[in-house]
């Protein structure tokens, strides 16, 4: 069907045009094919980025279009880097990043290891486990606020059922102590399957022959696990961590819907803080500098990490 349509298009092409296309060199075709994508990315990603960098040196505010825009050099950067509130949001982000990755790696790897035991029906259960990560974080995050309601929420009920506490005695998203963990729990629930899938691919890539050789050498199962399984899965695991690290550094939708950054500012991750500066306080220049700092941080950390990852892969 598709081919017929293509034939028709080809026949309908005026001979002049066809001759021109036919005459194109591979190099020209390559540029025609790549060009539109690069153009779109330049227009919607790079141009805005350059604009952001430019704005970051000014005191521009979107809500005061007519106010004179002053070039203030590095003042925005200076103010951001010396602002204790921003360091607090960085701490909240670090807490979120560390614990989500910790739990996702721990649970994800364990699950992958168990699934790799090839019990009957493991495919079906793997598919079911994967479901949460494909869903809209904002919509699901919003519903979790319902599960987290004191008294009527399912989460509180289940926790109370097993611990004997009063389900209305604690509020996961209302308490300063619990809210940072509330967002860790939901993110872990959502993204553990991601780490699991990648680990599973790693485990399945290890050829049986290596274990057979180890068995002949009388290596214990425990030793096999630490000297074969772990080193060979490590590059996969590190890649999973890279993906989760970048994604969670940018985290916005899930947490905004869950806690909105509160109570106080204990769950105000950097993206949420940035959104407030840019779209609620309308300090455009200041927020632009903030955005540049974030981007440089992500990019820098990711590059260092990728170097380490490549070293592990080479081993």
């Amino acid at each position, binding site marked *: 069907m598709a*081919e017929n349509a293509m034939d028709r298009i080809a026949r309908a092409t005026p001979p002049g045009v066809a001759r021109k296309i*036919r005459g194109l060199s*591979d*190099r020209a075709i*390559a540029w025609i*094919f*790549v060009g539109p*994508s690069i153009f*779109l*990315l330049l227009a*919607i*990603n*790079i141009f*805005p980025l350059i604009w*952001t960098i430019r*704005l970051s040196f000014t005191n521009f505010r*979107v809500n005061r279009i007519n106010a004179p825009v002053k070039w203030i050099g590095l003042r925005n950067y200076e103010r951001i880097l010396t602002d204790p509130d921003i360091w607090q949001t960085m701490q909240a982000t670090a807490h979120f990043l560390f614990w989500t990755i910790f739990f996702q790696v721990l*649970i994800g790897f364990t*699950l992958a290891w*168990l*699934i790799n*035991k*090839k*019990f009957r029906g*493991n*495919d079906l*259960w793997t*598919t079911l486990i*994967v*479901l*949460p990560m*494909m*869903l*809209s974080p904002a*919509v699901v995050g*919003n*519903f979790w606020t*319902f599960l987290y309601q004191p008294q009527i929420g*399912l989460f509180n009920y289940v926790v109370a059922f097993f611990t004997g506490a009063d389900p209305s005695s604690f509020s996961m998203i209302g308490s300063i102590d619990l809210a940072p963990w509330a967002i860790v729990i939901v993110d872990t*629930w959502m993204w553990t399957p991601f780490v699991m*899938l*990648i680990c599973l691919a790693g485990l*399945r890539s290890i050829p*049986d022959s290596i*274990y*057979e050789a180890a068995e002949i050498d009388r290596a214990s199962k425990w030793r096999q696990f630490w000297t074969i399984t772990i080193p060979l899965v490590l590059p996969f695991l590190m*890649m999973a961590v890279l993906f989760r690290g*970048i994604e969670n*550094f940018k985290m*916005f*939708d899930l947490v905004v819907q869950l806690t909105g950054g509160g109570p106080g500012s204990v769950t105000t991750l950097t*993206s949420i803080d*940035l*959104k407030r500066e*840019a*779209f609620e306080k309308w300090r455009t220049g200041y*927020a632009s500098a903030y*955005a540049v700092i974030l*981007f440089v941080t992500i990019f820098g950390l*990711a590059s260092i990490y990728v170097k380490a990852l490549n070293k592990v892969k080479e081993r």
Partner: protein
Amino acid sequence: MSGFSVNEPSRRMKWFAGILVVFYALVTLMPLLWIIATGFKSPADSIAYPPKVIFRPTLEGYVNLFTTQTRITPDMEEGLEPPKNWVEQIVRDKGMVIAGPSRYVQRFMNSVIIGFGSTFLSVFLGTLAAYAFSRFRVPIKDDLLFFILSTRMMPPIAVAIPIFLMFRQLGLSDTHMGMILLYTAVNLSLSVWLLKGFIDEIPLEYEEAALIDGYTRFQAFYKVVLPQAMTGIASTAIFCLIFAWNEYAFAVLLTSGEAQTAPPFIPTIIGVGGQDWPAVAAGASIFLLPVMVITILLRKHLLRGITFGAVRK
């Protein structure tokens, strides 16, 4: 080979692993089942303590989701006709009348239009670019590919500031066109990387044979490579669609009415006196179910899609 592998887990191990995994799966699916169940609860049942597992299913949540209602005032009561159908009956039982349709359908359609529009564009552009990257010697190819990938690392909020300004100037804010272009750009990294992997796997020999037979490059591309890459293109399209479907940050910042998609809308569904959880759950169910079904159908390609083609099974 005797068919025996030293790596074959023992029977007891399999049972142990199976029970733990099934237990995890059941726990992890609870919130999703709860969303679907809550959609069929009455508002009173939805906030009952202890949480109700067994309840009388009602479509009230769905009715509330699709309609706006007003309370019947005493002077309205006389002129009121008896309810014409079950939908009106449900509303009337609460002492309300239907005032009109809600905005949910429109927001849902926005999600459909923007999702499919951006998916089509990003897969179209992505296929061309991926083919070129896969088959031709493009100058600074690796840098370009890395540049394309790096656009994905930017926090959406950081890019949103200038895009907000740019869209305002071009008249693109809160339009379908603006959102389609934006999502296309965001999805391009995914589609180029995934499709390059798929096209790399198609043996060069097919095309060479076609070229020798007198096909031009273009003909070889659309008669030989495209049909071969169809599975890859389809699964790439689905990943792009799911991203656009789920996206929230850009949507909440750059749309407010006309082009607002469902994710920023669903959390704002408010009933009379507080959040109407059955209606929210109903809206979420309708919105999430297609993705769940697609995920199950797509399970073989899942890993590749979520890792930008880095891990192939």
